[in-house]
């Protein structure tokens, strides 16, 4: 540069440069939205401290046997790592979206049927909360080993009866810990896992292809009668309790319902 630039020259040139700077040419939101959905999904190989390419053949083999491993040996499945850190809940990625068994019927709800949330609270030993947005429950069930409360809404205006659950909405509440895995889900590539803010925390919304869902008994074993497909589901933790809302509603509507728990 032949001539010296003073501060005013520099300011003028910098301002000139600013008018020429390009931003991204396409809408970033779809990519950001996808990253938000993936954020909580920690690849299991990252916990092993090995290069992904080294693990690829092993990963392919493990992916094929993962569903069987889930059913037969929970310890192997545990070793692969769960995706979320909601107490009491494990979510696994599986290579294919699960399909319904030919004779699968709407789920039956285990436990003692009680008349009110207050009665359920007394038996369960914690305050059972219900979503005001769904109105009065159709039925409430309480199980004690492990303690789990299921609240059923058979028909709610504006929420279709789910092909998987046979009702409009199901709410499950339990006290979960990291050590005791009460509930598990297996999601395939067609199921979208999205993290959304809820109150001061984060909730997880599963949508798209139905996912596989089951409870474990106190010994950590799969309870076969609970193995079924589940539709759109919102999962969250509050004050040490884990909540699960299953209803064929949008993510925003699920969050609205979750925000109405009293």
């Amino acid at each position: 540069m032949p001539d010296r630039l003073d501060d005013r020259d520099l300011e003028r040139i910098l301002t000139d440069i600013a008018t020429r700077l390009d931003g991204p040419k396409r809408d970033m939101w779809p990519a950001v939205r996808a990253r938000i959905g993936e954020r909580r999904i920690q690849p299991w190989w990252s916990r092993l401290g090995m290069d992904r390419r080294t693990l690829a053949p092993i990963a392919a083999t493990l992916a094929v046997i993962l569903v069987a491993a889930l059913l037969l040996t929970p310890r192997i499945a545990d070793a692969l790592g769960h995706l979320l850190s909601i107490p009491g809940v494990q979510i696994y990625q599986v290579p294919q979206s699960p399909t319904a068994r030919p004779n699968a019927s709407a789920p039956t709800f285990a436990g003692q049927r009680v008349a009110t949330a207050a009665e359920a609270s007394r038996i369960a030993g914690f305050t059972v909360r219900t979503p005001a947005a769904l109105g009065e429950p159709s039925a409430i069930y309480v199980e004690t080993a492990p303690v789990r409360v299921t609240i059923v809404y058979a028909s709610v205006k504006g929420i279709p009866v789910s092909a998987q659950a046979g009702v409009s909405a199901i709410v499950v509440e339990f006290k979960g810990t990291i050590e005791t895995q009460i509930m598990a889900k297996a999601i395939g590539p067609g199921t979208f896992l999205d993290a959304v803010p809820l109150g001061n925390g984060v909730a997880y919304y599963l949508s798209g292809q139905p996912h596989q869902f089951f409870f474990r008994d106190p010994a950590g074993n799969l309870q076969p009668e609970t193995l079924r497909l589940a539709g759109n589901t919102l999962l969250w933790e509050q004050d040490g309790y884990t909540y699960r809302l299953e209803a064929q509603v949008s993510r925003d509507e699920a969050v609205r319902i979750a925000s109405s728990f009293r």
Partner: protein
Amino acid sequence: MEGRPAEDAVLVERAQHGDTEAYGELVRRYQALATRTAYVITGLSTEAEDAAQDGFTKAYFALGRFRTGAPFRPWLLRIVANEAKNRRKAAGRRPTVDLSVAEDRPSGDTALSPEEAALASERRAFVLGALGKLREEDRLVIAYRYFMQLSEAEMADALGVARGTVKSRLSRAIGRLREITAGQVRADA
């Protein structure tokens, strides 16, 4: 500028309550600023976009900690800048500040003669080259002021410094840029 904070605040609050499309609106609104911020640090446009996207993602998960009533823009840019700094450190290289980004769009030079336009282009290239030799914090303060037109208060928030520090830091950065263009300083001081 007056309307923006209130509108941002509404979108942020909606996003905090689970309205992801409200957050999408914020992403679209600030994707250019976020990418410029990252670009000033990484010096590579593709990496800048990637860093901006990761910054937006991290900001989303930090919404629960966002102070109600605070301006969103500098808060976001701070997160994006940190993301870009981490990437640059991990890559272990200096930014290059690619001139093509500044030269592929005509901007008010139509009144200039070909000779004058060529000189202006040369000066831009010269200053961009000098910017690349500045320390990261100097480059960032200049970018916030001249490339993104942030207010002093916003710059203070985005840089994480006291408001009174911004002026002196900007003045020092311009001074260093002047020294570099004058050939007095050739590398990081």
